[in-house]
């Protein structure tokens, strides 16, 4: 008989056909529509930037795996480096210079992931580590937004202009395209003493469709929601974090807006602005850096939302998703140890149930 029959493999002898590569691929499929929309909206420079960011993330991964003597090709195909690069790319200003993407990809993989010991070991979301590092190091480039310049539309940069923008910066011809985000605009106006009721008239319009200034892949709320719902239905993520995070933003926003509309933006603006949607469905839900019990996920998601709101409203930065997610990442181990699922036959404290007479 076959000599391998006795190989000491323990049960079960059958297993799911699922694997990390497939999970990452599903996430990418869910992410694709909003990204493609971003390409259309912001044109060639954004496409180049996306490519550069992902390439640099993969390069960083390959380098580290080679250095640590693990098979580079196998780990690269699990897609986690691509996904990190992708998530970072879509959160960048679409016309940022090439080195923002290149640095960012490396930052994310090196500081965000391999410093902690590689896949599954990192405390913080690698894409957000990179975003925050870039924001602190290069505040100007990281907050230079452009308005929509749909591909092939008149006046939008062609493939060559795109390269120029990427490598030389935004030329004078396209200067008119720079724009502010709603959050950034209101913050600046408020700091000048113009309250929201007055500034609202000139504020850049928000739209569900996503035709607004913002990061490459964060503007099309409805496409992000569609992708997120697909992930929930396919059971790649659970609903807890996204719902809790959106509630965490909307609740305080609605309350304070009702209390003083002149100084606090309304809930809808908060939900539709910046990285909230992308953060709720694609960033905060990162497996490695979020809690693993349902209650823990609710707490974590709500914390992400609430902190986002707090940072946006009272801190120096107009946008707070990246900071909020990283702060909650740091709390994840504590949340995990506090909100464990109840064990069969034990109470919430982990003590055996009493036998009722």
């Amino acid at each position, binding site marked *: 008989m076959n000599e391998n029959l*006795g190989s000491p493999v323990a049960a079960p002898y059958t297993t799911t056909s699922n694997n990390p590569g497939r999970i990452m691929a599903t996430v990418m499929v869910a992410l694709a529509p909003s990204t493609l929309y971003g390409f259309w909206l912001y044109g060639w420079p954004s496409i180049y930037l996306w490519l550069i960011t992902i390439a640099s993330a993969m390069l960083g991964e390959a380098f580290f795996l080679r250095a640590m003597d693990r098979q580079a090709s196998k780990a690269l195909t699990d897609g986690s480096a691509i996904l990190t690069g992708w998530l970072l790319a879509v959160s960048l200003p679409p016309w940022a210079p090439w080195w923002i993407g290149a640095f960012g990809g490396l930052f994310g993989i090196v500081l965000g992931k391999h410093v902690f010991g590689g896949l599954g070991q990192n405390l913080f979301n690698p894409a957000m580590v990179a975003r925050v590092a870039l924001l602190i190091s290069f505040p100007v480039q990281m907050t230079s937004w452009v308005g929509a310049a749909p591909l092939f539309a008149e006046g939008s940069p062609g493939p060559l202009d795109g390269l120029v923008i990427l490598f030389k910066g935004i030329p004078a011809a396209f200067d008119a395209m720079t724009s502010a985000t709603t959050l950034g605009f209101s913050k600046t106006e408020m700091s000048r003493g113009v309250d929201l009721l007055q500034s609202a008239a000139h504020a850049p319009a928000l739209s569900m469709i996503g035709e607004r200034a913002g990061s490459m892949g964060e503007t099309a709320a409805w496409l992000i929601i569609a992708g997120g719902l697909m992930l929930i239905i396919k059971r790649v993520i659970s609903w807890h974090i996204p719902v809790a995070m959106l509630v965490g933003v909307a609740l305080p926003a609605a309350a304070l807006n009702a209390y003083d509309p002149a100084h606090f933006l309304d809930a809808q603006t908060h939900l539709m602005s910046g990285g909230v949607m992308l953060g709720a469905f694609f960033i905060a839900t990162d497996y490695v850096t979020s809690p693993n019990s349902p209650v823990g996920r609710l707490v974590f998601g709500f914390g992400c939302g609430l902190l986002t709101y707090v940072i946006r409203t009272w801190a120096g930065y107009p946008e707070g998703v990246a900071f909020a997610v990283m702060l909650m990442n740091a709390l994840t181990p504590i949340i995990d140890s506090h909100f464990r699922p109840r064990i069969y036959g034990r109470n919430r404290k982990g003590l055996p*149930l009493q036998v009722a007479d």
Partner: protein
Amino acid sequence: MGFLDRFFKEPSWGVHPDDHKRPAADAPLRILPTPERVYMPLSQHVGGAARPIVVVGQKVLKGQLLADAQGNISAPIHAPVSGTVFSIGEVTAPHASGLPFRAITIESDGQDRWIDTELVADPFALAPEDIARKAAAAGVVGLGGATFPSAVKFALGKRLKVETLIVNGGECEPYLSSDDRIMRDFADQVVDGVRLVMHAIGAKEALVGIEDNKPEAIAAMRKAAASFSEVKICPVPTRYPMGSDKQLIQTLTGKEVPSNARAAEVGVLVHNVSTCAAVHKAVRLGQPLVERIVTLNGGAIATPGNIYAPLGTLVTDLLAFVGLKGEPARLILGGPMMGTPLAHDRIPLVKGASGILAFNAAEAATPEAGPCIRCGTCADACPMGLLPMEMAAHIRVEDFEGAEGYALGDCISCGCCAYVCPSHIPLVQYFSYAKGELMAAERVKLRTDATKRLAEARSARIEREKQEKAEAAARRKAEKDAAAAAKAAAAKAPAKDSGQAQGETV
């Protein structure tokens, strides 16, 4: 299955593997021709091995006692065929990795002659203890795989006044269909056995849980139980591990067994459908447990299905009977989720063997394990509500106490976590290893504690003796001093303490 069902109807725990039960489950039951030789292991149950009472060369009839139960928890072994006792003792398997086992080998005379059996017309007139006694004498053990002597469980149920008997017809393991087959073909025997077990433990009702992927079995059992209102047939959702005692109890009664208690303490007792059929045969027909239905399934088998075979039949003979399509890449005793790998096929069929699986290369392929991506899928699937990835993380760095802090001891080794893990981490292997290490540590601790207690007792004794001696010495000295003083007083001369040192240091 409707989309909403996925969210609302099914339990939140467990997994839903491809069941691979059909066509094997639908193939009619086949009877194995009596093999030339059978090997009855002396230990096919939880508890003490049986003690042989026959001698080599002795002629035995089918059903004759070969080895008697030994100790409080044990079960006897009977002859599965009529013939001659060929050998008693170690059977060395002809394979390097095969462990030897103690067995009684019988050469069949091909006639299959039974011993005289005692028919009982009205077993319900018997005392409950008599039912337990008959089941014990017939060597009935849990046939779902646990192989715990049934009579011991009856006694426990009776003592704790169990009200509800749960009958396990879940058979949630993929590939297996022996319980399905027994319910379809012998529903009357099963129901009669259920009622006998109820009588033995004094239960008022019996809930028969059958997964809803076995509609034929449900129909057959409903028909058989139609005139007995105390026996309720309850279809349960198809979900692995529904056939695990704790999960079935929860699904059928809503009760949870406390983690440090036995099911009987919450008023329920679980017996498998095949066990109930064996009780029926033991009590009503006086037939000991010498045969069983076993599923032969897997991609390497030519005609998969259920076989009625004498215990002690070699797996080789069973495989030859159903035919092989090619060399099996893996042999498993039991189901693919919790079964045991077989190192070779010269292993006899035992009481707890509900299936023998022969996997082809595609089925046996195990993907390479990757790093944990902390996706939490394992925790969502765990029917016990444990956190497999946390336990594994502690075990990986040999921190077994840390894993115990996550209630590793409550793990039922069902394999759901390892089944769903996208990184294919052999979690159950981790857990078995850690449980073994913890058990070993516990044993060492008990031993060192005992040694320590002995040592402490010894030093306490030495201390006490020393003290006693010192006290005695002091007493003697005082007496002597007093005597000397008296003498001195009497002699009016200074006394000399010269003799004092003597006899006081030992």
